[in-house]
C-alpha cells in the first residue's frame, strides 16, 4: 500500500534521496521537451509554439489517470496524497499575477532552474527574481494577510463541487484534454 511515506515504509532520509531522483527525472523531461527555453515557452501565448500546453496537459492527464487507477486497484490511497487547500480570490489573483509575469519572464519557477542549469543567464535571473519576490511577500505579509487567507474552501476537488463521482471527473477532464490536443494539432498543421 502506498504512499510509502504515509504507510511508514519510507523514512525521512529515504524521502530526501527519492526527492533527488524524482527531481532529476522531472528536470530531465522538462529539458528534453524544450521547456528550458524562454522564447519557446513564450510562444504559447502567441500561438506560435504550443509545447507548454501539450506537455502540461499530457502530464496532468497521465498523473490523474494513473492516480485514479492505482487507487481503484488498491495500490495507492489517494485520500493520503496531499491535496492543496483552495482559497478562491487569492488563487485567482495570484494566477493573474503569475500568468502575466510568466509572459514577461518567459519561464516559470521550475523551468527557470532548468534554463539556468543549461547555462542560460535569463534562467538565473528569474531564479533571483523569485527569491526577491518571496522575500517582498514575507516583508509585507502583515498588510496582505487578510487578503491571503480570504475565501477559504478547504481541500476540495472539482468532483465534490460538481457532485459527481471521481470516475466522471477523470473522464470529463481526459475528454477535454484530448479535444484540446486535437485543436492544438490542427492549429499547428494550419501554420505548417
Amino acid at each position: 500500500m502506498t504512499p510509502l511515506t504515509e504507510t511508514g515504509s519510507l523514512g525521512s532520509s529515504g524521502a530526501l534521496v527519492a526527492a533527488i531522483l524524482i527531481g532529476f527525472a522531472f528536470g530531465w523531461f522538462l529539458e528534453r521537451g524544450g521547456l528550458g527555453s524562454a522564447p519557446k515557452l513564450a510562444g504559447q501565448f502567441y500561438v506560435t509554439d504550443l509545447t507548454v500546453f501539450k506537455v502540461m496537459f499530457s502530464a496532468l492527464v497521465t498523473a490523474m489517470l494513473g492516480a485514479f487507477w492505482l487507487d481503484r486497484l488498491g495500490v495507492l490511497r489517494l485520500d493520503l496524497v496531499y491535496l492543496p487547500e483552495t482559497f478562491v480570490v487569492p488563487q485567482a489573483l495570484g494566477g493573474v499575477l503569475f500568468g502575466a509575469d510568466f509572459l514577461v519572464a518567459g519561464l516559470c519557477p521550475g523551468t527557470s532552474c532548468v534554463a539556468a542549469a543549461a547555462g542560460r543567464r535569463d534562467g538565473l535571473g528569474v531564479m533571483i527574481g523569485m527569491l526577491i519576490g518571496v522575500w517582498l511577500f514575507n516583508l509585507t505579509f502583515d498588510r496582505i494577510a487578510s487578503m491571503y487567507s480570504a475565501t477559504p474552501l478547504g481541500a476540495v476537488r472539482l468532483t465534490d463541487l460538481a457532485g459527481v463521482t471521481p470516475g466522471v471527473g477523470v473522464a470529463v477532464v481526459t475528454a477535454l484534454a484530448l479535444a484540446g490536443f486535437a485543436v492544438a494539432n490542427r492549429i499547428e498543421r494550419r501554420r505548417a
Partner: protein
Amino acid sequence: MNRTPRPYIDPYLAGIGIGVVLLAAYVVVGQGLGASGAFASVVASGTAVVQGATRAAASPAVAPYLPHGIASPLQDWLVFELAGVMLGGFTSAWLAGRLRRDVERGSGVGVRQRMSAAVGGGALMGVGAKFARGCTSGQALSGGALLSVGSWIFIASCFAAGYVLAPAARRLWR
C-alpha cells in the same frame, strides 16, 4: 560537446514522462512536484541567518518554512527535489549538446532589457505563486491532476492573463 544540438523530443512524450514522474511522487512521498516552495524555504532560511532564528520565526509568513530552524532547507523535500531538477536539466542539456552560456531573448530586446524582465517578472511571479500557494508545478500540475478546485482556478486565471497581455508584451518576444 556536440556542435549541433539534438532536436527536442515530442512534447506529448515529454508530458507523459513528467506525468509518470508526478505519479511516482504521489506513490512514494504522498505529495506532488513543486518549485516555488523550495524558493520560499531558501528565503526563510536566509531571513533566519540575517535576523536570527527567533525573530524570523516570529513572522507568520516565514515560520512555516523553519520547522528545523536555520538548517530547514537541508531537510526540505522540495529543496532536494529542485536540486534534482537542476541536475536532471543539466545532464539532459549536456547529453543533447544544448549546454550554452547564453541569454535567450526575442530579437527586439537587448541583454540588459531581457535580464531586467527576467528578474522583475520573476519577482512578481514569486508574489503570485505565494498568493496562489504554488506555481506551475506545485499548483497547476500536482494539484490539477488531483482535480483540486484552487489548482484549476489558478490554471484558468494564469492562462487568461497571459493571453490578454500577450499583445502588450509582443516586443519582448518578437
